[in-house]
């Protein structure tokens, strides 16, 4: 019988029916512009974007699961995890001579870092943004000490596998498409997935419905860590292990999740949308490079577009009246007992 109103407001845009459409629409738009400017290689542009997008998609899927777990949940350690997993996987692969072991080691190290976050979040009630920040700091320390005098080189077999493009479709993109389908199935068809979505909508209600909330949240962070670790392992083989391999992926992973249509306040995950948003980001980078714009313009464009989509789609009524009512969903979740429609 508390009268507190939870802080975050529910946001149901953009485009309630097909929230993933925005990312793909923006990506298509950028692609057309590229085509118009260069006048050639349209198919190849998509093919190359598809060979870069999967990395962002994997880490984005992990971030999406975390964000789906409800208000306040975010994993800001993904960047550091990617860098660390890159080194660990390359070291493990060259020590054992097996790329598979390397990938598993990368995933494992992601899980370990996420375990630190999860213990802090669940055991010490540290807010997730702080817990994952701290875990990320620890991870980047380990990265730095590993980077010193690091001698192993990425597995050449894995590298050429990542570069395989039968009929212009990157093998990795296909593999990650399968992974995306698995995530969709995880969310729709498993008890864990349903529980996660329930927890994201209302943690209290989920707890009262008999869902083991702590276990669900903990395993979600572990999953995100695993996916970030996988990203690191693949990225290190594709590019090269380096201490700042993952830095760029933190903000982008959050941004693609949101542009992809996943509810930032939790409870609705849109895995397909991550693809659209990732392709949009990759193609945008390409366009900016093609036109020769500076990074300043690139950032202005990125930020401007995020804000534009956000404010255009909005969350509430179109009327900005004096006593603006909350949207329906907002009423249902954020109000309180101070709600006056029901006695």
């Amino acid at each position: 019988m508390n009268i507190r109103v939870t802080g975050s407001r529910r946001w149901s845009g953009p485009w309630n029916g097909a929230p993933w459409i925005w990312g793909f629409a923006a990506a298509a738009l950028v692609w057309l512009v590229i085509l118009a400017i260069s006048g050639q290689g349209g198919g190849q542009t998509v093919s190359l974007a598809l060979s870069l997008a999967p990395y962002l998609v994997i880490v984005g899927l992990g971030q999406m699961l975390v964000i789906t777990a409800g208000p306040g949940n975010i994993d800001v350690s993904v960047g550091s995890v990617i860098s660390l997993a890159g080194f660990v996987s390359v070291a493990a692969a060259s020590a054992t001579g097996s790329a598979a072991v390397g990938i598993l080691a990368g995933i494992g190290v992601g899980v370990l870092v996420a375990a630190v976050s999860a213990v802090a979040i669940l055991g010490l009630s540290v807010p997730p943004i702080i817990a994952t920040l701290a875990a990320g700091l620890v991870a980047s320390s380990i990265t730095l000490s590993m980077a010193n005098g690091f001698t192993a080189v990425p597995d050449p077999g894995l590298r050429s596998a990542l570069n395989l493009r039968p009929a212009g479709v990157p093998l990795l993109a296909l593999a990650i498409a399968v992974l995306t389908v698995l995530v969709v199935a995880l969310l729709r068809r498993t008890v864990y997935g349903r529980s996660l979505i329930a927890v994201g909508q209302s943690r209290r209600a989920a707890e009262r419905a008999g869902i083991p909330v702590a276990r669900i949240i903990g395993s979600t962070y572990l999953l995100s860590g695993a996916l970030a670790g996988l990203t690191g392992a693949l990225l290190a083989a594709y590019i090269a292990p380096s201490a700042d391999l993952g830095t760029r992926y933190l903000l982008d992973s959050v941004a693609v999740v949101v542009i992809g249509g996943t509810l930032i306040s939790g409870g609705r995950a849109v895995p397909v949308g991550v693809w659209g948003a990732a392709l949009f980001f990759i193609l945008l980078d390409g366009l900016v490079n093609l036109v020769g714009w500076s990074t300043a313009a690139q950032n202005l464009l990125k930020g401007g577009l995020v804000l534009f989509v956000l404010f255009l789609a909005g969350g509430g009524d179109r009327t900005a009246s004096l006593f603006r009512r909350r949207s329906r969903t907002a009423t249902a979740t954020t109000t309180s007992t101070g709600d006056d429609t029901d006695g």
Partner: protein
Amino acid sequence: AGCGSGGSGSATADAAGGSAGGGGKPFIALSNGFIGNGWRQTMIAKFEAAAEQAKTDGLIGKYKVVNAPGENSATEQVAQIKSLLLQKPDALLIDPASPTALQPVIQQACTAGVKVVVFDSAIDAPCAHVLQNSFVDWATYAAKPLLEGIGGKGSVIVSRGVVGSQPEAEMLDTTKKILADYPGVKTVATVTGMCDGATAQKAVLGVLSSVPKVDGVIGCGDGYGVAQAFATAGKPVPAVDFETNGRALSYWRDNKIDNGSVAVMSDPGQSVAALWEALDLLGGKDVPKQMTFPIVLIEQKDRDAWASVLKPDEYAAWPWTQELFRQQVEAVKTGGKPVQPPIPSAVG
């Protein structure tokens, strides 16, 4: 640098005994604004090795390395320099996170009587001594051999560095001038590679589908990533400017890329040169305020020698000794030819 805490014994005791003037051996501190890439790590490792040796040799009493955590954060570095000043070093070497942000704190250090040597970047601090790279040389080495290698004709991509920075402007200027000398060469795209392989890889990949056949990519130490981008796109690797680290050199060697590619980057050994400069300053020697030090150019003929001594993430560094340093100072003073330090042999 597994032993970053280079100092010996209790800091307090040393700080008291180490201050200059009393005939004690000098205390050298190094503040590094960023430790997140291989170049900086090599730079620190070289310094620590040299400083350790200098301590054994009795040239210095104590040294200390402080790296600002996080992403090239000038604010963190300012805080760290301030706390370093509390420990009263005799000389302070700085690889700055930003060419301007440190100016006030450097002034503060000078006022406190600390000899300040800034390296790797030009900085507007009148009281500090500066060791810097020749960006004109860098850009020249990056473009000339490569253009010669592709026979003076064909199409190239220019991968720019940190667009907008003073060095980048200087380098782009030089590149353009050189390109003007090769009318047969067409620039088909200009991308922003940030002098970073991973960034360049993505940037080049982004434009590859929209450009015709590429013969060379003029960059600044991002060739490994550029080569990967071509591999991904299933195109032959053109002439590129490799990083000077073991990974890029081995790749270059192992894939038998023989098309005019070179490796060229600034010299992480500058930290060692800065150490010798600080010692000479403390010793009262006359050293010019501004000096330009040679950059590291690895051509195909020297490639294998370097590749055999470098670890993948270790960058080629000139092995500055006190002797070589003094020769270079002379060369700068007299305007003579810069010293060419020896290329390490596989034995070392």
